[in-house]
């Protein structure tokens, strides 16, 4: 059923009894052309692009729990394409363009809200680094503006300009950046992919790979039986190493916990997305009114999906340093996600050394904004066996070659990215 204000009004007459499932409740079939492991945003987007762009509809998405139960459902919903290095800029802009048409593509309101993303700077050196980055964006056809102090003051008069330890000097603004409703992205892709024939299979945990005599992956073992596959794509960020290990692979990835926080709902207080340049704090306000914020990863390897107090305090200290008006706003919920932290802070989308097995991993804490782009380029790789041009640098062998994409310049130490 097509979603619109008219269908809603019609359904209202029947007490909304006429609505169907948002996606079909599929059970696994024996074989698919492509099996995607992971029913998060990336996996479902990949399936949708396979079906809609590449004409491959005999596709299953296997999810061990409920769709969106991983990082897709526990991130801070920011979308942006303000990267500074070749490889990243083009890819994230591709993704941004797909965000801009997502609701029409999917017939699902994912609440893509381009209210702007600003990275504040507090020193000349930081301004220069942002200038370099912003110019990269402009050269790649991405919108970027370097704001001075007066412009920031006008836009965000509530920041601490008077007695800050590290006074704000300006910011790098991407007006097209913003937020989207994370769960809706998952449901929207499931809705649209399912409509094109993709099987979205929940409560189906992959427990191993089926390999032929040559070692080629020909299917997966799951908690719901063996499923044959022409190709298998992994989109399980947070668990990439665990799943890859079933195929005997070791990855340049560590799993780390990133905490996120939301405040009680309050009337509109802040515009857009802000990141503090002198501490670990970024924030936006959801449509419901909660301040959604976060900071740095906890810094130790973890699969526990929960963090500890030092980082929680550190994040709130950053928040209070930046805008002391939030002192009496209450933190309502705290949670954690498992980040696939790669060795250079950038993702990996590539064939693996195992024939038939394809990898989409290493998103660090930037995975949400990449969702549509990741889906498209991974679908391309699965369909064509060659990288999409905007993902040509996200190769697995780049670490061995020395062609890292290291935005932060901290090297092979995942917890610093």
């Amino acid at each position, binding site marked *: 059923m097509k979603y619109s204000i008219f269908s809603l009004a019609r359904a209202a007459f029947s007490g909304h009894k006429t609505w169907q499932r948002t996606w079909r409740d599929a059970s696994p079939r024996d074989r698919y052309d492509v099996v995607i492991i992971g029913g998060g945003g990336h996996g479902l987007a990949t399936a949708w692009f396979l079906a809609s762009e590449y004409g491959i509809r005999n596709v299953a998405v296997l999810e061990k729990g409920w769709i969106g139960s991983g990082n897709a459902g526990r991130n801070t919903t920011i979308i942006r394409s303000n990267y500074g290095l070749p490889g990243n800029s083009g890819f994230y802009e591709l993704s941004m363009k797909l965000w801009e048409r997502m609701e029409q593509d999917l017939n699902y309101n994912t609440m893509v809200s381009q209210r702007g993303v600003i990275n504040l700077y507090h020193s000349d050196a930081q301004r220069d680094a942002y200038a370099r980055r912003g110019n990269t964006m402009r050269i790649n056809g991405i919108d970027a503006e370097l704001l001075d102090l007066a412009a920031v003051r006008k836009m965000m008069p509530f920041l601490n300009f008077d007695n800050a330890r590290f006074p704000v000097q300006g910011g790098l603004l991407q007006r097209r950046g913003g937020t989207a409703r994370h769960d809706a992205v998952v449901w929207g892709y499931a809705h649209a992919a399912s409509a094109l024939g993709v099987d979205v299979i929940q409560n189906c945990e992959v427990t191993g790979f089926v390999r032929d005599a040559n070692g080629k992956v020909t299917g997966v073992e799951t908690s719901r039986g063996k499923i044959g596959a022409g190709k298998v794509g992994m989109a399980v960020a947070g668990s990439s190493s665990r799943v890859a290990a079933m195929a005997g692979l070791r990855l340049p990835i*560590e799993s780390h916990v990133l905490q996120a926080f939301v405040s009680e709902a309050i009337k509109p207080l802040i515009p857009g997305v802000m990141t503090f340049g002198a501490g670990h704090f970024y924030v936006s306000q959801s449509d419901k009114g909660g301040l959604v914020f976060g900071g740095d990863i906890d810094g130790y390897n973890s699969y*526990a999906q929960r963090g*500890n107090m030092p980082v929680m305090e550190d994040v709130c200290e950053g928040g209070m340093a930046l805008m002391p008006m939030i002192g009496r706003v209450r933190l309502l919920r705290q949670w954690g996600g498992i980040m696939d932290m790669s060795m250079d802070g950038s993702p990996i989308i590539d064939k693996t050394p195992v024939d038939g097995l394809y990898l989409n991993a290493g998103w660090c804490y930037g995975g949400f904004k990449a969702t549509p782009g990741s889906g498209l380029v991974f679908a391309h790789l699965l369909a064509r066996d060659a990288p999409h041009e905007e993902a040509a640098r996200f190769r697995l062998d780049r670490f*061995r070659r020395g062609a890292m994409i290291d935005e932060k310049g901290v090297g*092979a*130490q995942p917890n610093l990215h």
Partner: protein
Amino acid sequence: MRIVCPFCGERELGEFTCLGDAKPVRPAAGASADEVFDYVYLRDNVAGETSEHWYHGGGCRAWLKITRNTLTHEISSVEPAAGVGAAKVGA
């Protein structure tokens, strides 16, 4: 998290920094680039018990080898790194 430093006793997480997996051992001089690549870049990234290098930078500045479960954060052992306490080894 609380870590029982073998020198200082139980201390809170904020005094420590985690570097990462302690299993990879730095290859000796003359090792191949592949061996060094493996050491620098590839990780088992275990979901479960694993050993890690932690630094008690906010305390006694000892590097520690900690066995910790990444699913529960439970710590089962803490040992000093090889070079800590070297004053008490045979000269």
